[in-house]
């Protein structure tokens, strides 16, 4: 099927997110706008105005009621999704690079940039998923990253851990309540920054992407690296496809080098890898700049990618995607089906 091209942004995309129902797509870009779109036809529902700097990150609460965004104007803002009203603004000394709600929407974490003498931090804010409620000014927690600044972070299952990816290619596991550092492991090549961290649906494992051209699948509890996906280009984003055992990776020649190389050099493609076998399965072309962000539809019907070229492309999966199976997978599926059949009988 033809992809839907969302051309509402004027500058490079920074993050794209689906709401948990998979019917809305939120996108943010360096043009200081948040857009919300219908996932099924690409119609723009509206924009959220107020930020005065490039917006780096966005997240939706599990009930699709409120929206959190982090920006280079040194604020995190909360928005009423329905009305577009800004509900709350938290100010920070530096830009906010990543925000994420925990699984029950009671807390929000933010990653702040290291700049102008300020250390990079991860802050935790208590939020109420209620457009009427007064939001607190107090930070529930502040974790200071002394070694290497955090570039991305997220909540594990049960909000038990906060996992952060760092500029030096390592990941950290913090206690979700106390903020104590439990572990720090180098995962990617030294000093190749981690560019994205996205969760599986139950938040027991996650995928990281890095400038070292690999993406890794890691468990939240033991920080065990299950899988590694090697590509030929620096990666900016990685997502885990629900319902199928695939992962989606996006990247391309670093934006600043693009003009000096030929277009074929850019490798501006979304890549699909088999989650378990680590093989590349397919590529989707279309962007004419590196992919800055990819997001999988939580219902498993498609995915969206946002590029340096300022476009969001929304792809619906076709039959081939659903039917694709390795011989051993089909074997297993058949076995399970047979077992189910006998159980029924």
């Amino acid at each position, binding site marked *: 099927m033809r992809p839907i091209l969302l051309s509402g942004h004027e500058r490079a995309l920074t993050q794209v997110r689906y709401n948990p129902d998979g019917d809305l797509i939120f996108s943010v870009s360096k043009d200081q706008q948040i857009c919300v779109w219908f996932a099924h036809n690409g119609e723009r529902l509206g924009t959220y105005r107020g930020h005065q700097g490039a917006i780096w990150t966005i997240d939706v609460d599990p009930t699709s009621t409120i929206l959190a965004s982090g920006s280079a104007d040194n604020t995190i803002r909360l928005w009423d999704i329905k009305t577009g009203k800004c509900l709350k603004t938290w100010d920070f000394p530096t830009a906010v690079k990543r925000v994420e709600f925990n699984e029950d929407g009671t807390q929000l974490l933010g990653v702040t940039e290291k700049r102008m003498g300020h250390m990079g931090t991860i802050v935790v804010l208590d939020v109420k998923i209620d457009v009427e409620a007064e939001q607190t000014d107090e930070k529930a927690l502040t974790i200071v990253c002394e070694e290497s600044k955090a570039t991305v972070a997220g909540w594990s299952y049960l909000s038990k851990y906060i996992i952060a990816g760092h500029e030096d290619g390592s990941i950290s596991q913090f206690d979700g309540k106390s903020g104590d550092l439990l572990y720090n492991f180098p995962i990617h090549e030294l000093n190749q920054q981690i560019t994205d961290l996205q969760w599986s649906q139950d938040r027991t494992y996650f995928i990281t992407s890095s400038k070292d051209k690999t993406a890794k699948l890691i468990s939240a509890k033991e920080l065990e690296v299950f899988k590694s996906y090697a590509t030929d280009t620096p990666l900016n984003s990685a997502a885990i496809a629900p319902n199928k055992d695939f992962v989606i990776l996006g990247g391309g020649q670093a934006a600043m080098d693009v003009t000096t190389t030929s277009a074929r050099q850019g490798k501006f493609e979304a890549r699909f890898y088999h989650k378990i076998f680590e093989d590349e399965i397919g590529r989707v072309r279309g962007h004419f700049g590196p992919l800055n962000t990819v997001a999988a539809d939580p219902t498993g019907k498609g995915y969206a990618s946002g590029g340096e070229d300022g476009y969001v492309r929304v792809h619906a999966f076709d039959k081939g995607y659903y039917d694709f199976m390795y011989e051993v997978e089909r074997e*297993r599926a058949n076995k399970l089906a047979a077992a189910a059949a006998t159980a029924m009988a």
Partner: protein
Amino acid sequence: MAPSFDHLRDEDLDDEDFDMDEVDISDLREKYEVQLEQGYDTFVVVDGLPAVTEELKPKLIKFLLKKLNSVGRTSEDAIYMPMGDDGKSLRFAFVEFSSAAEAAAAVRQLDFVPLDKKNTLRVNKLTDVDRYGREGRIDEEYTPPAIDEFEEKEHLRSFMADPSGRGRDQFVMFRGETVGVFWNNEKDQPENVVDRQQWTETFVQWSPLGTYLTSVHAQGVLLWGGPSWARLRRFPHPFVNLVAFSPNEKYLVTWSNRPISIPDSGHPSLSLDDDGKNYVIWDIETSKPLRSFAQQDTPAAGDDPAKKPAKFPWPAFKWSADDKYVARLNQGTSISVYELPKMNLLDKTAIKIEGVMDFEWAPATPRRDGVKAYEQLFCFWTPEIGSNPARVGLMSIPSKQIVRSLNLFSVSDAKLHWQSDSSYICVKVDRHSKSKKSQATTLEIFRVKEKGVPVEVVDTIKDTVINFAWEPKGDRFVIITTTEPVGVTAVPPKTSVAFFCPEKAKGNAVGNFKHLRTLEKKNSNAIYWSPKGRFVVVATVANTQSSDLDFFDVDFEGEKPEGEKDLTANLQLMNTSEHYGITDIEWDPSGRYVATWASAWKHSMENGYHLYDFRGELLREEPVEKFKQWAWRPRPPTLLTKEEQKQVRKNLREYSRVFEQEDAERISSADVAVVEARRRQLLDWYSWRETTEEELIEERLALGLPENPLAELLKEKTAEVATVVGEAEEQVIEEIMEEVLEETEEIVN
């Protein structure tokens, strides 16, 4: 202004505190003391002279002088021949030369030279006699030198025996800072044999028979090989830039653009004689230097200052096919031919050829019709000088006879291309018209093996021929021409690729060379024949716009065009391919595979390699960061006789059946292994998922949380919405139905 010595006043000098004698300057004295000319360096001792009486002595000295003056300058007065008590000479003489270098030359060139039938000269430096022969240095009793116990060495040709029994070829890859040797596995990941960090500093190179892998370092050249990849030889030529082997791996030439400078403390294998030299010729077996040479001044660019100085010629030393001779061009005057292993100038003089521009040895020992004596051939050419025509000559060594020569007019340049069996040499002659405005090229082919070496002229080609290549072991060739001279233009001009082959002739004779076909409007600039002949790749390399690869078969087994019935070739384009950014191409020694790569030495775009089979089918492509070099390991010539080879060819079907079966089995067993591994991975993953999911639910229950947090939250929310809207729950369910409907719409779209 800083106070100079003149401005110092006397009172500034603390004379009373200063006592010369107290200062110990012995170390400084040692370091800076002028080495007084010891004077003995110019002396040599000549042994092996006949015993003569006083009357005959002047005669002998005169005779000796003749020999001595051939290497340096000396005179009657500088020869002192001591006389014994019996009135006869003591059979030796001291000789003083005018310089130490001449004395050294005398030792090198006159030692072991026969004086007459009975006597052989032995020439040694006086300093050496003093050093080694002084009393106490030599034991009175002879003790035989200790001979080391025989040690089994590694088999240097073990690489010929592929452990998998498939006769695979090896290759070396240099990427990043790592050098690795691999077995070619066609489509699969090459099998690593050895992989080492920083194995070389600049590049790697195989010896011509594949025995050694050469690594190049600031300190010199190292050779590696055998199953353990041990260091086998060391050639310490400081700051070496380039390396060349003799065709049979007996000798090695190293070159550095920096003249060798021997430190005072000496050098492990080079001597003072090598000081200031750029080339060293080494004996590989002993790792000893044979002789060193200084770089010749590149000839002046002439009266045309715009012309770039002549490119530095490499290889400067060219080897005859059997390693017996090595020769160097002295541009415009002569060719110096040296005999191995002594490295003495053949007949003690360079071969004078006025104006000589270039020469090439026959790549195989030639077998001319009716010539039984041993010979090596080289071909040379000289430009027009005054009213004399330009000339191409074929010289036989060691007789120095010109076997064939050809006069040519209006020559602006010539290039010499030998066919690999030395059956032919093609001289590509660029000619200019009288006005020097238009150019044309002729191909003059010498049929070396035929009686009298007939010369055939093939076509006059209007365009500039930019490339030429003979079919190895065959008699066909490919040329690439272009209409415009290749200049510094952004877009290189279009080229044409032309194929030539001999006409059919009776018996074993080879007919006249005829034009077969020309393919126009190409971008190609390089020709790569399979080492076994028949197949040829015509490619566009090191070109930013295009990077085409055309795979041709010149013995196509299909139908032959009517017009080409009389020709000994049937040309067919088998495949075309493209490898973006390609910089180099190399056939494997068996002629089965072609490797192409984009080297980081030339550019940084899409570095990596492709592997094709001989038909041009892409087997494998692998992008490799900082990929620099690929080199197939050469193989020594086959040990099978002609008859045995024929036998193999005859029974090829039977052999291939065995191999095909093996291939099929290997592939299927590999598939089984892959499937097994996948099954395991799948099982591991799902068992992990299962335990994790169970744990998660347990933990949730323990915390008193709902099993599915999202569902719970949504239920709350829908309840909220429902109360706000004031509608019944059933209708809420309807809304969910609506969503599903929307989804069907999407599919219709």
